[in-house]
């Protein structure tokens, strides 16, 4: 559906996107993940023909983004970052305007708008002015706008930015639902989002692609040593006994009140030491109130990946402008 070849965008004195090549197949939900300022929005803007590439090119549904810009735009439903809308229009009026502008006929457009409003649960605000809508509704109006002309490809730039946790969950479900009918490319800096909705993640940092894989594979590939937490009524000296278990690399005890001690065990990525720890506790007759293992999430993988590539700077680049 999308085929990008060496896509590059240089601004005066700064390369925002540096020779990016990637593909998105039909029906995929792909997450574009990176810290702010990594070049996500710039890439999406080049794909939607809002900006021109300095170098390289891309095709969308077989059409070149430069040569056949109109054909490309007809096939894309785009929701820009921060969802810009006309505040002085009513929701239904706005969506009908957008539908007509995207080439729908009068009757066709009425039906399509009704359908899009239904999908995004907007019926209640159809006659409301956009200026009076809450952030959550505005986001849904933006989404309805993106899908009103039933595009093959949906490009959503940070679709859940600024929503509350409940709304994020709703829009996540909505995106997953939409994934059944559309190819979707979403950008975000929220990891849990791609972890739950996307079949594939492209991690981008400072204009280059750092990784492209399924979330599960990324976690596996980047899995850090696992860790096991044990809270037991045992003296701090028990740490040496725990360290003797095969697969445990390191033990960090810290004493709590009433004789309880919590031990954090760093383990090899592959081994699960909980059974051995349990047996040890029985043998030593320690009272145990917690024994649990923590696995690395995509978040950890992501942070590691960025750290690997850019030691001191990455934490600051997380906060720079977009």
């Amino acid at each position: 559906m999308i085929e990008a070849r060496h896509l590059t965008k240089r601004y005066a004195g700064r390369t925002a996107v540096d020779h990016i090549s990637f593909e998105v197949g039909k029906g995929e939900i792909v997450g574009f993940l990176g810290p702010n300022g990594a070049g996500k929005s710039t890439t999406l803007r080049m794909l939607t023909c809002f900006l021109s590439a300095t170098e390289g090119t891309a095709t969308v549904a077989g059409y070149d983004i430069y040569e056949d810009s109109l054909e490309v735009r007809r096939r894309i439903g785009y929701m820009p970052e921060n969802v810009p809308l006309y505040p002085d229009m009513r929701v239904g009026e706005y969506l009908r305007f957008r539908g007509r502008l995207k080439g729908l006929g009068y009757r066709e457009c009425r039906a399509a708008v009704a359908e899009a409003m239904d999908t995004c649960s907007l019926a209640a605000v159809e006659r409301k002015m956009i200026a009076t809508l809450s952030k959550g509704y505005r986001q849904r109006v933006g989404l309805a706008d993106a899908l009103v002309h039933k595009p093959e490809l949906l490009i959503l730039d940070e679709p859940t930015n600024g929503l509350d946790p409940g709304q994020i969950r709703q829009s996540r479900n909505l995106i997953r639902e939409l994934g059944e009918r559309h190819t979707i490319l979403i950008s975000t800096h929220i990891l849990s989002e791609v972890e739950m909705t996307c079949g594939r993640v492209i991690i981008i940092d400072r204009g280059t692609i750092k990784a492209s894989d399924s979330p599960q594979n990324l976690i596996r590939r980047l899995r850090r040593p696992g860790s096991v937490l044990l809270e037991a009524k045992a003296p701090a000296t028990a740490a040496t006994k725990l360290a003797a278990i095969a697969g445990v690399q390191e033990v960090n005890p810290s004493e709590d009140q009433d004789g309880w001690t919590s031990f954090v065990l760093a383990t090899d990525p592959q081994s699960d030491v909980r059974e051995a720890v349990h047996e040890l506790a029985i043998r030593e007759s320690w009272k145990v109130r917690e024994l649990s293992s923590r696995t690395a999430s995509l978040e950890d993988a992501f942070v590691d990946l960025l750290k690997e590539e850019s030691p001191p700077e990455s934490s600051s680049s997380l906060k720079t402008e977009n």
Partner: protein
Amino acid sequence: MRPFSILFFKELRSFFLSPMAYVIMALFTFLNGWLFVSMVRAMQMQASPRSLVHNLFASGWFWMGFLILFPLITMRLFADERKMGTIEGLLTAPVRTSEVVLAKYGAAVAVYLVLLLPVFAFFPLFRLVTGEVTAFQPGAVWGSLLGLFLIGAFHVSIGTLASALTANPLIAAMLTFVFVMLHYFLGFLQNFGMVTGSVWSEGMSYFSTTEHMNVLAEGLVDSRPLVYYLSFSVLLLSLTHHVLESRKWRA
């Protein structure tokens, strides 16, 4: 050309659904109504070689009100879209940039013509009420309408370009006002310490809006202002198109 008409009517709607349209229209109509009455009074006191229509549109007061219209009509065209970010949705829709420019320009010209309507209603109304046949001289009325249409079309294109240059409607309005005024006063340079009939005054008279208007308000259709205003409008609109297109390439 369907995107054109969709965008054109959207622009018209958003203009006439805002209270600003009516404030501008009321003020402009009021100013010209007052001017009309004073012109009639003045012509009662003293005979004038020129028609009522001609006198009204040659008055400096008319021009002051008139020139202020353009920044007000055009300032929001593109500047507002850029300020709100809606330009991103607009230019990623399957429409040509030229269609967007023409639709916005066309809508602004239409708005301008609607603002002008009440003023032109004065003449037939006055004739109807007073039975004064000379109040409505078709040649003078149609000539000045054509003149004001041409001058307006040109000024609106100045405003369209100014609005595309900035993301701030106020700055767009200022730019438009400055250039509209500069152009207006350029015509007065023909009297600048020079003898009439010299190359200088002859040359400058080609730029003189008041001069053009004087000819057209007599009911004489001169092709020179016609070509002048239309070609400048086309030039400024194509510049607007380039400004919008170059945004894709610039930083």
